[in-house]
């Protein structure tokens, strides 16, 4: 499933104006970036509340296909800028991490 398909189906807000619409094959949920670096899989959508630009660096490092910011957290401009620079899709939802993870898991394993 592509990032756009995932976002549209689950009603996630797409923050970037342009991005690389890669395949999402799995999800990973964590708010500790050291844990993301160690355990996230390539092609995942990273589900987190860490709304700052360092998250972009870590997501890029592990080859995530997208980042999903939960709880409708405010996203600072420099995070959007960093996501644009990396063409990394940045999504947002008002769901919390638990609810978002459940929805993503359900759709990817349907």
């Amino acid at each position, binding site marked *: 499933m592509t990032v756009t398909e995932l976002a549209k189906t689950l009603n996630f807000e797409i923050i970037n104006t342009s991005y690389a619409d890669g395949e999402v094959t799995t999800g990973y949920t964590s708010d*500790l*970036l*050291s844990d*993301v*670096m160690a355990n996230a899989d390539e092609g995942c959508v990273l589900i987190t509340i*860490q*709304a*700052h*630009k*360092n998250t972009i*660096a*870590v997501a890029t490092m592990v080859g995530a296909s997208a980042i999903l910011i939960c709880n409708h957290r405010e996203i*600072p401009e*420099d995070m959007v800028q960093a996501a644009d620079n990396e063409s990394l899709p940045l999504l947002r939802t008002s769901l919390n991490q638990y609810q978002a993870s459940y929805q993503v898991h359900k759709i990817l394993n349907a």
Partner: protein
Amino acid sequence: MSPRRILEEAQAKNLDIIALTDHNTALNCPTLLSLAKNTNIVVFPGLEITSREEVHILALFEHLEEALDMGQWIYPSLTEFPYDAEKYGDQVYVDENEVILGEVSVYLGQACSYTLEEIVDTIHQHNGLAIPSHIDRPGSGLLDNLGFLLPQEKTRFDAIELSRYYWLSPFPIPNKEDYPCLSSSDAHFPEAIGTLVSTIDTEEKSWQGFCKALHERQIKAGIFPSNI
């Protein structure tokens, strides 16, 4: 832990320089600085700020006013929610005789809404030193929360602080050599004061002497005084 108690403990432990860095506030600094005037101990006023990324960073200053200004900058960025002093502990500031002067109603253990970068900028605008705390430690340390330490030119941190965990069991930290290293007790109760210290090689026991020693790397961290 009142300023009077902190000073007594620091004197008993023969410390030369201490910093008072309560979480997200500098309101106890005026009393400690005033008490320390009649002693041989130099006190740097400061704060331990929790950034938006939930990384702890020390802000150290030469002058009280700079620390208080920094506290005033942080305060509005903390979220107001009902604070239960019974559960989380008192958040009071006191005078030289331990009489309570006031209480902070916003929970000080929370993250502020500023990013690390914004915090470093603002510390520098106030002529302070920006030093991420216990970067090696699980929970609220830079490496745990962010996953990496960038080279100094990117972060503009003036030094890094390593906790007892690192000194007891050192591990490789990429870019660590870029930074002067400090260690301190991160004391949350009086007995812990001075259990881990740094020594600096300086002719001048002062802010200027400290800054110069940091700059010239004339600082030795990771000393457990009871083991000497």
